[in-house]
């Protein structure tokens, strides 16, 4: 049977599920929205949302690869956005983006340091830092938002950092592609990637082979924080505006992207392309609700239902593929 021939492929590639879900949803969305969803402008919007959510998801996937989790990324995103916007006007967009990256790396370092030093579950540590950095973001902005004046929204640095479009897509998308390309090489073809997945597969075994488990985990958190804050910087660049609530609840979407994309929460098995596809699917759902006029307050509810449905579908597919 042609179907059973697909079983080994499904077993080997955990991201197949999200691609199927994505394909099904694209057909449904395109056929039920009377052209409002499947048009170039809207796809461009979806790609812009995918770009920032995708950057965050890639980072989360790396941390999941070590068997840990980082749920503080929503706040890291917000801190990155604020750092970028605050400095982009005062100094220069490039310096601002670098500063946002440093802020993100620092938050990642704090997370990683706390997790490896205290040997406390990362779920709890990053739940704490999620609140801490959200609190800092709100306190710093004092409830106000700030923005880049229209007069300052020009120049190639502004353009490159989320402020402009290239070939019809927001420049953030190209940053996502670059980050993906680098990470996939690091993960698959470099010693660091081998050790990272080993730590997620069995930290004890990796340790016994001389792998510095804590350093690997710490690096993963730093990568994750960096990507989340950079995503925030790009989002701020795109909107030209930031406030203390930016990125709120985005951590849930990033984790959902990873899990739907075939990343095993227990660690050791992740799919970066799956995580990106997950981000694309979630962004598409969001966009579909907007263009079909569903009120945005329904988004989280519907998203949750689709996540549960998709997770169940993926598991059924997997069980089917495992059977002889």
């Amino acid at each position, binding site marked *: 049977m042609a179907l059973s021939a697909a079983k080994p492929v499904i077993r080997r590639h955990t991201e197949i599920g999200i691609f199927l879900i994505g394909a099904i949803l694209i057909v449904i969305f395109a056929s039920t929205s009377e052209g409002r969803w499947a048009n170039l402008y809207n796809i461009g919007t979806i790609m812009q949302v995918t770009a920032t959510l995708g950057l965050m998801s890639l980072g989360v996937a790396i941390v999941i690869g070590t068997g840990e989790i980082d749920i503080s990324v929503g706040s890291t995103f917000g801190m990155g956005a604020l750092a970028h916007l605050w400095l982009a006007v005062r100094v220069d967009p490039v310096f601002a983006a670098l500063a946002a990256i440093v802020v993100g790396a620092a938050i990642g370092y704090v997370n990683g340091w706390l997790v490896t030093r205290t040997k406390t579950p990362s779920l709890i540590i990053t739940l704490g830092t999620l609140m801490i950095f959200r609190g800092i973001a709100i306190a710093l902005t004092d409830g106000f938002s700030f923005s880049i004046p229209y007069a300052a929204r020009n120049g190639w640095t502004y353009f490159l950092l989320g402020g402009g479009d290239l070939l019809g897509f927001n420049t953030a998308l190209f940053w996502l592609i670059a980050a993906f390309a680098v990470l996939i090489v690091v993960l698959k073809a470099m010693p660091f990637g*081998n050790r990272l997945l080993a730590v997620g597969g069995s930290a004890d075994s990796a340790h*016994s*082979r*001389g792998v510095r488990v804590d350093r690997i985990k710490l690096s993963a958190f730093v990568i994750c924080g960096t990507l989340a804050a950079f995503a925030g910087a790009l989002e701020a660049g795109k909107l030209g505006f930031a406030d203390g609530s930016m990125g709120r609840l985005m951590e849930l979407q990033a984790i959902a992207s990873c899990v739907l994309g075939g990343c095993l929460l227990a660690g050791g*098995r992740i799919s970066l392309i799956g995580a990106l596809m997950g981000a694309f699917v979630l962004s598409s759902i969001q966009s579909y609700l907007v263009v079909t006029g569903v009120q945005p307050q329904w988004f989280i509810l519907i998203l949750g239902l689709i996540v549960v449905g998709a997770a169940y579908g993926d598991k059924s597919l997997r069980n089917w593929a495992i059977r002889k």
Partner: protein
Amino acid sequence: MTQQPLIQVKNLDLYFGAFHALKNVSVDFNAGELIGLVGDNGAGKTTLIRVLCGIHPPTKGEVFFDGKKVEKFHPKLAIDQGIETIQQSVGLCDNLSIARNFYLGREPVKRILGIPFLDFAKMREKSSRVIRQFGLRENVSADDEVERLSGGERQSVKIGRAVEFKNRVVIMDEPTNHLSVREREHVNELAVQLKEQGLLVIYITHDIFQVHKLADRIVIMENGEKVADASTDSISAEALEDVIRQGGRLVEKQEAV
């Protein structure tokens, strides 16, 4: 013996929380010696060698390697010193391929513009060639995940790896587990060969009769204590078995050298 022991363990104590896993253990291990480390489950054999290979830092006591006191314990440091270990319950990551497990922590790289990329060709070729000597089937590829291997094949990966990277010390924790009779003999011959090449071989097993035939010296552990330490010339396997059975003691006086 007049030569300086390669590894010297002095008054070692190790606690896991309140559990006293090793109690004032002192043993000398010499280069070119095959030592059988014997005892029942929970006797502390594995715990002792996990101190030697850097997994557990001791709570009290000292370890000397080549006459130098070991200050920091980490598997990386032990491996760098030339201690290769076939662990019993750890050592393989199920989610990684055979080749990736084989080289985990010491991956061969090709540098392009100074960036280290895994040397896949070497990893595949070398690992499958070495492991096949120890019972890996021909139809298993070095790219297959370890998860798919049988118990014996998993063991063959660990053994092959230790042989490939052997340097000064090879520690084997129940190395013949999951192996067929033929493979067992192969591993036992290997242990003797390594010793003859001048390495220190520490061979852990339940089976006193099996190891008595191979070893130069037998160390028996019980409840975290060393209860016997005797050369195989001086005492029979039967007598040693009685020591284990009766929970007795037979420790040759060993003054510090």
